[in-house]
């Protein structure tokens, strides 16, 4: 066995399984690297080579799944290298802009005070800080429609909680590591819940089924608990894009 231990140079392209290719932009997270991954995804999807089945952008990488009996890994690697040499326009990554209503604190955000303590600010400052921040949808992962959004300002760099909450509802606003995780269905989590949106971003009854895509921008807008109850989820989707 001969394993190559050379230091990686980024962007780094390698195979994953026998039907995948992954382009890694770095080892540490940054919004710039995330935008590069999304920009590459956007460019690559403009004209997909034959045999490509799907592309999966994540925090700082892009995975391509393909049929290796139709197209070879080496062809796609060369193809990607050529794309990477052209200037990727990170401004034009196909993103849209959404304003999403959310109730902060109370039973909808039971860990708001804890987050305020960790950030050493008041709960109302947590709410205003969060709802004033324009966030990128950096990737969808964990479960259907679950969005990883960020980055929030450095003051939001708080750790995940030590205990796992076995189930938080879809629409929860979950906070850690300068990110908001915004799930579309119940999930277990160690992240702290500061709010709840009446909007679920995955709906089998809608077309398309997923409201958000990686590359979109979102801002949460504070609403009252009473207002959240009066919002019809069916109508909500049409009114969110700004």
């Amino acid at each position: 066995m001969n394993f190559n231990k050379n230091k990686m140079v980024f962007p780094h392209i390698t195979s994953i399984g026998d039907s995948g290719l992954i382009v890694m932009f770095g080892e540490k997270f940054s919004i710039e690297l995330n935008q590069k991954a999304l920009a590459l995804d956007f460019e690559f999807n403009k004209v997909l080579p034959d045999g490509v089945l799907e592309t999966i952008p994540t925090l700082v990488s892009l995975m391509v799944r393909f049929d290796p009996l139709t197209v070879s890994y080496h062809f796609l690697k060369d193809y990607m290298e050529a794309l990477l040499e052209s200037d990727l326009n990170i401004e034009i990554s196909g993103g849209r802009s959404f304003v999403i209503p959310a109730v902060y604190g109370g039973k909808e955000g039971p860990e708001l005070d804890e987050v305020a303590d960790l950030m050493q600010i008041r709960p109302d400052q947590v709410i205003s800080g969060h709802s004033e921040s324009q966030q990128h949808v950096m990737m969808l992962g964990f479960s259907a429609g679950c969005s990883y959004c960020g980055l929030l300002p450095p003051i939001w760099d708080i750790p995940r909680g030590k205990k796992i909450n076995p189930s938080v509802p879809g629409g929860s606003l979950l906070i850690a590591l300068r990110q908001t995780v915004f799930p579309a269905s119940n999930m277990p989590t160690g992240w702290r819940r500061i709010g709840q949106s009446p909007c679920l971003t995955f709906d089998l009854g809608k077309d398309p089924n997923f409201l958000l895509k990686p590359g979109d921008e979102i801002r949460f807008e504070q609403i009252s608990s009473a207002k959240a109850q009066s919002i019809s989820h069916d109508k909500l989707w049409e009114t969110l894009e700004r």
Partner: protein
Amino acid sequence: MSLYINSTLIGASVQDDGRPGLQRYGVTSGGAVDKLALAQGRVLLNDEGNTAALEFSAVGGKFKVQTSSFFVFTGAEALLKLNGNLIPQGQVFGANVGDEIEIGSISKGFYSYLHVAGGFLSTAHLGSRSANVQVGLGTALENGNILPYKRTLHRDLMCLKLNDYFNSNKIRVVSGPQTNLFPEKVLQRFFSTEYKVSPMRNRMGVKLDFNGENFYTDAGLSVLSDAIELGDIQIDGEGTPTVLLNDRQPTGGYPRISTIISADLHKFAQKSVNSKFNFVMVTLKEAIKALEELTEQLRNLRSQVDSLQRDPHNISNLLNYSLVGGAIRGDEFDES
């Protein structure tokens, strides 16, 4: 136009080719774990396209036929009975209204498939009938539920000799983006270790048992979440390996030491609990060659299917064929 579920079902679900293309939205493809067994059923029933079968794991179940049709059973070995009469696997049989199909516990392998002519027609979600109840796609199958299918479609009583691929002791893998995060010594040990399939397994993944030290990597602890591939071997925080299958999560932050090649995925998934094996590293070229061979095998299935209506003198195991169970009344296909 349906099959009535007449027993408790555990670990059974309707599966087709799955829903590839949605992992970027957080949905993995799902689909039948054993593609070969799914393809065998389709060929035997002369069905084209993405038809769905009922996938079983470990235990079987009982069913009452509510519309006469033709069925076949493939994959892991289990006793199949029609009204109490044994029917061999890989043999198409007709069943009439009121007949009882009974599938016993799986004795060899892990996933079996009951196919019906034209496929099961449970509700499709996101372009596939494959159920993944945990993520809200499809529903769990319960005693008293019905599994719909088309009105009676005629099928010939074809049969296929099913080969045994249920206990491979070598599972081939290729390296991946995180292989090199493991120290050379840990990698050497990973490939010299004998593994045992643990009972901690489902369609999401299979945890492996082994003797010896766990497979630690310091570098792997800071891996950022990225896309998980089918067959990835994840090393969790405790240093134990889990092979991730069709209903895996879309993204993960645990390092993956290598990935099972496409041609061996069904062989791995069919291994019984407690069966032993080793991982063998191969090159990408060897993995593609193996996939070409499997694709060729799937393409050749059609030419291997035999009609049951042949000279009985040439059938060495005639008694294994349920000639009576395959009979039908004759009026099932009338339009009325």
